[in-house]
C-alpha cells in the first residue's frame, strides 16, 4: 500500500498523510487536533474540494492538525496527493 505525506506540526500547519485505496472504496478522512471540534466540517470540505479538483476518487487521508487554515490544508493535501502519484516521498 503506497503512502505519502506533506506538512509539519508547526503552529498553524498540519501533516497530511495519504494512502492509496482500491477503486470504488471512496474517500475516507481521519482528523485529529485542537481545531477539529469547531472546524471539522470546514476541514472535510477543504480536503474533499482539493481531492475533487485533482480528480482523486479513492483515497484514505489522515490529518494531524495544529491549527492550519483552509489554504494551508489544501496545499498540504495537494502536495501529499502529488507525491503519492509521483511514487516518491519527495
Amino acid at each position: 500500500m503506497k503512502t505519502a505525506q506533506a506538512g509539519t506540526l508547526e503552529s498553524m500547519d498540519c501533516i497530511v498523510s495519504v494512502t492509496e485505496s482500491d477503486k470504488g472504496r471512496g474517500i475516507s478522512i481521519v482528523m485529529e487536533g485542537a481545531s477539529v471540534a469547531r472546524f471539522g466540517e470546514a476541514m472535510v470540505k477543504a480536503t474533499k474540494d482539493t481531492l475533487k479538483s485533482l480528480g482523486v476518487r479513492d483515497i484514505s487521508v489522515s490529518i494531524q492538525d495544529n491549527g492550519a487554515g483552509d489554504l494551508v490544508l489544501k496545499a498540504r493535501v495537494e502536495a501529499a496527493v502529488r507525491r503519492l502519484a509521483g511514487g516518491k516521498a519527495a
Partner: protein
Amino acid sequence: MAINAVGRDIPDSIPGYGDVKHFKGHDRRPPEGNRFGKRNRTAFNSRTDKTLPDIKAAISASGLKSGMTISFHHHLRNGDFVVNAVLDACAEMGIRDLVIFPTALFGVHKHLTRHIQSGVIRQIMGSVNGPIGQLASEGGMSVPVILRSHGGRPRAVTSGEVVIDVAFIAAPTSDKYGNLSGAVGKSACGSLGYAHSDAEYAQCVIAITDNLVPYPAPCIHIPQFFVDFVVVVNSIGDPAGIVSGTTRVTRDPMRLLIADNAAKLIEATPYFKNGISFQTGAGGISLAVAAYVREAMRERGIKGSFGLGGITEFFVDMMKEGLFERLLDVQSFDLAAVRSIGENPNHVEISADWYANPWNAGCAVNMLDTVVLGATEVDRDFNVNVNTEADGALLHGIGGHQDTAAGAQLTIITTPLLRGRIPCAVDSVYTVTTPGEVVDAIVTEFGVAINPRRQDLIDAAKEAGNVPLVTMDELIDKAHGFTGSMSPVETEERIIGVIEYRDGTVIDVVKQLKKK
C-alpha cells in the same frame, strides 16, 4: 428561565445547584444578612498539644461524616500531596458523598478521579483544571461543578452560603498548638491567603504539616485560635511543583508586540502617575507588560504604591528598586516571592477576603488602578471567557479575573487574535466569565479595542497618538477572515458547570459535551 444581563438563558433552578439568582449587572446585588458565625469551642490549658498521629485520627476527631463539605487551599499548586491524601483516608474510612470545596485543583489531583467514580466525592465547588474538568465536561459527575472567583468564594463562606464542615489546611510550618506559617519549611509556599476564610469560618480546622517547630512558630500567618488539630506527615508536597523557578518574560515577538501595545495604553491613561497600583498575572504576556511598564516608570520617574495579587520575583524586584512601596500578596508564585514575604515587612500577606470579597467593607481590588488579564475568548460586548476551551470543555477556574476587572480603574485583557486556527475574538463567547461592562480594553497584536463605554480612555489614547486603536468589530472580522466560520459546540441539555459571578448570581452555565 430568564435571560440575564449578559444575554444568557439560565433556568430558575438547576438540579444539584438549587435556585438561581440571576446576574443583573456587576453591582446590582446588594449584600444580604450578617457574617456567618461558627460554633464556639473551648480548649483549656489541660490540652496544650493539638497534634494527632495521622490524618485518619484527625478525621475521626473532627466528626467528619458522609455528605459533609470539606475544604482545601491551593497554595501548594501542582506539588500538593494533601488533597489526595485526605480523600484516600476518607475513602478507606468509608466516608462518602463528600462535597469538596478547594480554592483550586491542579493536574496532580487527577488522582481524585477514582474517588469521584466510586462516590467518595459527590460534588466539586471550585475550579477543575485538566483531567477532572474533562471528566466533568463529559458528564462524569452527578452534580454540577460550581465555580466562584477568588472574591466570590470568601463571600460565599463569610456569608454562610457555603458552610465548611472541616477545613484541611496544608501548612509548611506549624507548632503543636496550631500556629501556621507558609513562609518557612521545606515545603514553603509563601502567602496562605486563600486559606484564611476557611480557617476562620470552618466548623473544624485540621492543619497538616511536614515541619513541626517548637511553640510559638515563626512568621505566623494563621493563628492558633482557629486551628483544632495538627497532623504531622512526612511531606505535604513536592517543592518543584509548589513554586516555579524564575518565570521569564516571553521572547515571542508576537506576544511582545501585544505587551508593548498594552504598555502604551497604560502610559496614555491618567492612571500612569505617581502612586499607580498594578496587578498582572504570571503568564508570559502579563510579565512582559510589567517589564515595559517598569521601563516607562524608570524613564518618567514614576513611583508606584502597591503591586497586588499573585506575586512573582518580577514584582519583588520592582519593590526593591523602589517602584512599589508595598506588595499585597494573596499567593506567592516563585521562590523569590516566598523568601520576600518571610523577610520584608512591606511584602504583606492578605487573605482572599481582604483581596477580593465584594461583601466586606472594602477589598484590595477596589484600590487597584490597572490590571492586566488574559482570556481564552472575548466578544463584541467585551465579555470575557476564561473557563472553557474552544471545544466546550470546562478546563479553567475563574481566579481573580472577575474581581480585579470589577475593582480596577483600568482593566486590560491581552490575547493573541488567534490560537492556531481558533479565533480569540468572536461574536459571542461560549461562556461568560467576566461581563463586558467591567472590561475596558482588549489588546491584541492587531491593535487595541477600547470599550465604547470608556470614551475618556479612547480620548486619552488618541491624544497619546501611539496606541494602535481598532474597534472590536474590526478585530472580530479580521479573526473571522483568517479562520472561517466555526461549527457550534455539540452539547446535551444537562448542565455540568455553574459559573457564579463574584456576588453569587449565576452569570453562565456549561453544558455536558455530546459523545463523539
